């Protein structure tokens, strides 16, 4: 299939719902196919790229932080960004700026940028398709 331009809207905050992982899995599939994807993170999803997420030990399972080996959402997203570049595609991660401000998660991983609803509409208009994964 020819390279496509796609827009994906995410709303869920990290660790709250399986929709987040499905969104990342769809992104992974898109990136492996070399598609160009814009993610517009809205509401709680702006925390997915928060740089200060930190791993922890798991006493219930007797594992220290190293043994727990727990990639956090920011780590997966950073890996997806890198994979996109290697595959000849693109992952443009846009966090809704007002959502970032009210949640205090302005420190994002490199590659994530601030944007607005106008950016979402512009990306969607330029895309072959858009999928909104809303929260409930």
């Amino acid at each position, binding site marked *: 299939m020819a390279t496509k331009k796609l827009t994906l*809207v995410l*709303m869920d905050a990290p660790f709250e719902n399986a929709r987040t992982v499905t969104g990342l899995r769809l992104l992974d599939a898109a990136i492996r196919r070399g598609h160009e994807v814009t993610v517009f993170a*809205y*509401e709680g999803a702006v925390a997915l790229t928060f740089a200060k997420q930190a791993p922890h030990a798991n006493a219930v399972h007797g594992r220290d932080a190293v043994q727990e080996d727990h990639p956090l959402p920011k780590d997966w997203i950073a890996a997806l960004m890198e994979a996109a570049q290697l595959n000849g595609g693109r992952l443009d991660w846009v966090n809704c700026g007002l959502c970032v401000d*009210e949640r205090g998660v302005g420190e994002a991983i490199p590659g994530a940028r601030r944007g*607005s*609803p*106008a950016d*979402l*509409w*512009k990306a*969607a*208009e330029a895309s072959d*398709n*858009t999928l*909104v994964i*809303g*929260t*409930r």
Partner: protein
Amino acid sequence: MKTLQIVTTAYRCNVEEQDDPVLWIIQAMRGAGANAHVLLEAGAVNYAARGQDASGLSFGGRAQTQPARIEEDIRRLIAKGAEVYAVEDDVAARGLERADLVDGVRGVSRAGLPGLFSAYDRIWRW
């Protein structure tokens, strides 16, 4: 690109946000030129009801002075030319009558949704 924006969940975080975030972003995109129209479905059909009032909350004496005003949002969307639909079956199931709804909200039956969808290039279900 003509889009139908489906709103399904209501009153999720309206107090914290002082808005419904989906109605807000639809209005923001329209302000940026988006050809975006609205379908209220499931619990969100209540957004078409007259008389919604979220005012009066305070926490530790700190009052909310700008509560969400959903009825105003719906009226403003309609006044600015947005097609705003509500699923009639969902409206009736919730004990709402036509007279309870804001003027200008259009009804569509659940059976009529395929026909409605065909009129839009893209359908975003929030």
